[in-house]
């Protein structure tokens, strides 16, 4: 059995022409279109292929934890720190950030439009018992949402107006549109799907990231190369090159440019300034 496995592995290796980098990331990151836009430059530079596996945050980290991905890009600081603490990665690095916004029905029954702070808006939604849909999938978005509820000192779980879906950002927005409900979304997904969500409006968070007056809605993305000490099979060298490329000034510029043409604003703000230790 081991001989067969070895033979097949060698055959697979020899057969697969370009080396492959496995990047585990979130569905919202992929759906924003950023990766499709910037990755070709990396693939060309390193003569490799990047396989993007876009799943929920929890699943992306679990995949990396098992050594099935070489590098992971998510936006869930607490989970990332935990990942490093568990030695699945040697370090994490900031890459970019964007923000969350609160979207809701055009008629805004909870009267939260233009509220500065998300926690105040959530309190208003709870008071009005207006329908709120949550991703409920242990994603970075959901963590941010939970933090806002905590700040508002409200515990919505179990309330009739609070619907926890267990789904990705896109599905959650579609459901919110169907049910004319409020939800917390990352600006990138909102912008790219806006046209298909006629019942919803952006109510809290400002027209662009620069206008967002609530720091708790800040959504930081971090990249981590999976630790070869724990998972000897990972392509650490290529992962390292990827991380270096991602934080390089040229790529950072490209990240900042992304979306400007299509949406009239950046979807992501590069901030890979210093190395985390």
């Amino acid at each position, binding site marked *: 059995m081991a001989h067969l496995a070895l033979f097949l*592995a060698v055959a*697979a290796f020899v057969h697969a022409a370009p080396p492959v980098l496995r990047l585990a990331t979130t569905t919202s990151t992929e*759906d924003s279109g950023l990766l499709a836009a910037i990755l070709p430059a990396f693939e060309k530079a390193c003569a490799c292929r990047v396989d993007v*596996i876009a*799943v929920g945050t929890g699943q992306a980290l679990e995949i990396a934890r098992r050594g*099935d991905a070489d590098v992971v890009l998510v936006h869930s600081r607490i989970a990332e720190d935990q990942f490093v603490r568990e030695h699945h990665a040697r370090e994490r690095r900031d890459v970019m950030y964007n923000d969350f916004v609160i979207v809701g029905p055009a008629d805004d029954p909870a009267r939260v439009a233009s509220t500065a702070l998300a926690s105040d808006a959530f309190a208003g939604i709870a008071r009005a018992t207006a329908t709120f849909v949550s991703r409920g999938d242990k994603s970075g978005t959901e963590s941010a949402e939970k933090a806002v509820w905590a700040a508002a000192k409200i515990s919505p779980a179990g309330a009739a107006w609070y619907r926890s879906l267990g789904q990705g950002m*896109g*599905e959650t*927005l579609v459901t919110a549109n169907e049910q004319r409900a409020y939800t917390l979304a990352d600006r990138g997904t909102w912008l*790219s799907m806006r046209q298909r969500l006629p019942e919803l409006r952006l109510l809290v968070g400002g027209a662009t990231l620069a206008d967002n007056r609530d720091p708790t809605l800040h959504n930081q993305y971090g990249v981590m190369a999976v630790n070869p000490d724990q998972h000897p099979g990972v392509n650490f060298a290529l992962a390292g090159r990827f991380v270096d490329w991602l934080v390089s000034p040229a790529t950072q510029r490209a990240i900042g440019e992304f979306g400007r043409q299509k949406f009239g604003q950046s979807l992501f703000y590069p901030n890979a300034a210093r190395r985390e230790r």
Partner: protein
Amino acid sequence: MSADLLTEFARPELVAIVGLTLRVTGTALFIACLVGVPLGAMLGLVRFRGQRLVTLTLYTGMGLPPVVVGLFVYMLLSRSGPFGALQWLFTPAGMIVAQTIIAFPLVAALTMSAVAGVDRAVHAQVFALGASRVQNAWTVVREARVGVTAAIVAAFGAAISEVGAVMLVGGNVQGQTRVLTTAIVLFTRQGDFAMAMALGIVLIVIAFAANLLLLRLQGRLGER
């Protein structure tokens, strides 16, 4: 549907998706039939001890949720799993393994059921006409061909329509492991229901064509 949707159909990406779907499901079905039809036929032809247990196991196998199969195969093929060295995770090979596991119980159990359902008098009749054991078995299986074809059709339908296993084991990687069902999930997630529906229709058309082929094969077996 607008003209742009039609041009969407011609996108090379879509062609790749359809091609991969046929390759993965086709290969899985082929392997499942190669092992499942003879095995199911044997199980249906002879009476043996423990037959009920085997039947129960296969019937349970038919009801396995694809996502559970996917999870199981994922664990096997993961780098931290027993077969990690194969490096089949997030590749079509891994997807084929998962779909074979899904298709196999359907092929075997339904073939067994069809063959067991053939009048026992056929065995005696064919024995008396000088058929060897192998010929006897083959004749009985041919008598059951409608049921056996249905078994293959059912297995094909289950494999081509499942999304849980190929999503988990394949990862829906663009250009590498994206098949029709996972592409539909992607488009749905992004709110592009029109595109998702269009792909759904493509899937149905493929299923239709495949079943047409299978029925013709069944008919041919009856002619000789």
